[in-house]
């Protein structure tokens, strides 16, 4: 498969990328629309002499991840929205105990059981901390099947580097769609893990823990976590732009929505509107600076999401009132067409660009 282009589903591409990134254990519970991922790894992990285990619940799966990550192994779990809600307790513990792992959320419409069609309505949960306590996940938002591969590999490295859980935030379309992907030859980054609980032979005992009963110690721990998140925010922001240099209407969108918006930008340009696109690739850390700078040159911004408006709050914080920020969203599994987004661009241009 090396160096050759193959047509793969997004869910399966994540699975293969995880194997190449050296993922040793994978624990999960089936849920649509990500079930191709456990199915793929149920076949592939044993082939590679690694561990696949279907847990009794998402709660058990994330706690198995906790245990395995605590031994220093590279480990992953995946689910879709309702299942990710169940994992939140474990994710908070993992963040508190500073364990590296990769969590995949192939988002579907909510709230509650919602539906099984694509959505981006878990943005708040992913980026603001869906569980209790002051913590952050590193959140990566692929927009193509190739990027699902590249960002999965990156996710394992970032997790180890920062001792932090990393979430791949996809959606039902990205999980289900097929595109050509290429797996490049690479050596997974190897970071020493002297903190791992592997048996205390030749050293003092190690404890994986998120409990600090002494408030001064817990505050200290929290400041340590916050310093780490600041470092991540300084070093790990990733985003992409498209025709944004002279854009008067700057569209901000991530994931599959950014793909549709990109086509809409071309349509608007064909109608003589200077539209452009900024696509956050990391949702935490958020490309606040990049958006603030791009906003300087634009007359207005338009955030497009498969939600009732979540990322738009971060865009507004970045723009800080200097420019109007409009929002267009579809929810419940409905997808906007490029024409639909183009109409919104035209509308915003009519309000803000016309002299």
């Amino acid at each position, binding site marked *: 498969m090396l160096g050759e282009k193959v047509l793969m589903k997004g869910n399966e591409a994540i699975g293969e990328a995880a194997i190449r990134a050296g993922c040793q254990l994978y624990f999960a519970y089936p849920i649509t629309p990500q079930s191709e991922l456990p199915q793929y790894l149920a076949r592939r992990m044993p082939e590679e002499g690694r561990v696949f285990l279907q847990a009794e619940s998402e*709660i*058990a799966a994330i706690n198995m991840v906790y245990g*395995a990550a605590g031994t220093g192994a590279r480990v992953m779990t995946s689910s879709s929205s309702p299942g990710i809600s169940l994992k939140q307790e474990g994710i908070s513990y993992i963040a508190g105990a500073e364990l590296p792992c990769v969590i995949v959320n192939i988002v579907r419409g909510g709230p509650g059981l919602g539906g099984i069609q694509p959505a981006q309505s878990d943005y708040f949960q992913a980026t603001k901390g869906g569980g209790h306590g002051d913590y952050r996940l590193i959140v990566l938002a692929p927009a193509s099947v190739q990027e699902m591969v590249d960002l999965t590999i990156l996710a394992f490295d970032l997790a180890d580097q920062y001792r932090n859980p990393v979430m791949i935030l996809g959606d039902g379309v990205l999980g289900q769609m097929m595109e050509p992907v290429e797996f490049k030859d690479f050596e997974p980054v190897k970071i020493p893990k002297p903190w791992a*609980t592997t048996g*205390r032979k030749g050293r003092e005992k190690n404890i994986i823990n998120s409990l600090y009963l002494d408030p001064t110690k817990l505050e200290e721990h929290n400041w340590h976590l916050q310093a780490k998140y600041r470092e991540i925010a300084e070093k790990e922001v990733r985003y992409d732009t498209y025709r944004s240099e002279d854009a008067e209407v700057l569209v901000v969108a991530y994931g599959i929505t950014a793909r549709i918006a990109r086509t809409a930008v071309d349509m608007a340009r064909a109608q003589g509107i200077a539209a452009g696109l900024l696509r956050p690739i990391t949702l935490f850390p958020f490309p606040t600076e990049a958006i603030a700078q791009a906003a300087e040159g634009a007359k207005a911004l338009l955030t497009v999401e498969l939600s009732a408006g979540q990322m738009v709050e971060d865009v507004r914080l970045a723009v800080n009132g200097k420019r109007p920020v409009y929002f267009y969203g579809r929810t419940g599994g409905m997808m906007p067409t490029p024409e639909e987004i183009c109409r919104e661009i035209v509308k915003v241009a009519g309000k803000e660009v016309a002299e």
Partner: protein
Amino acid sequence: MKVVFERPRALSDVTTHYCPGCTHGIIHRLVAEVIDELGILERTIGVAPVGCAVLAYNYLECDWQQAAHGRAPAVATGIKRALPDRVVFTYQGDGDLASIGTAEIVHAANRGERITVIYVNNAIYGMTGGQMAPTTLEGQVTATSPRGRDIKQAGHPMRMAEMLATLPGVSYLARVAVNKPANIMKAKKAIKQAFMVQIDDLGFGMVEILSTCPTNWGLQPAKAMEWVDEKMIPYYPLGEFKVPGEVK
């Protein structure tokens, strides 16, 4: 001079936070003695629960992971699957194992996870201040059953050992008590057996240990020991519920 009594190597030289008369200390010591006798301290990883034993990681000298409430068997599964040649045990109370963590314990047992579970049943929630546990006896007064546990309203006390013994993945399962020397000797034997079935790759091993909570039972320590005999053992009979085929 001949040493006739010493601290097990696996037991930390610290003062525990447990209340006077609480039997967690005895159980910790038994686990430490077994770890010493089996010579496994350097390859053992314990999983601490939420509850009174949450700080168990401070009292035994092996590596530890602290788990979310009830999830210790899942965490232990993750550790054991990553490191199959290590010895992994959980130390859980009755709220942790028999209430919030029922799914995790049942499925770990059913998969025959090669882990050892030390299950401490004192018929009450200790850490949170004496509320009703799934194991609280009928009529027993607690902070959340002030008129005594009414089984019509709150259901029956859970017999976890009997329930889990029905699962084919379980290799060793016993219920013991630590309220008097003879019982303590038997408890240690059972704990050792529960570790042995893991080391010998036979299956899941668990010991349910009837323990005391003088503070929340509102009894003097000596009375609490008697209460185990009088009230608990009649409902939670001692004995081996499952032993590995070879030694049957």
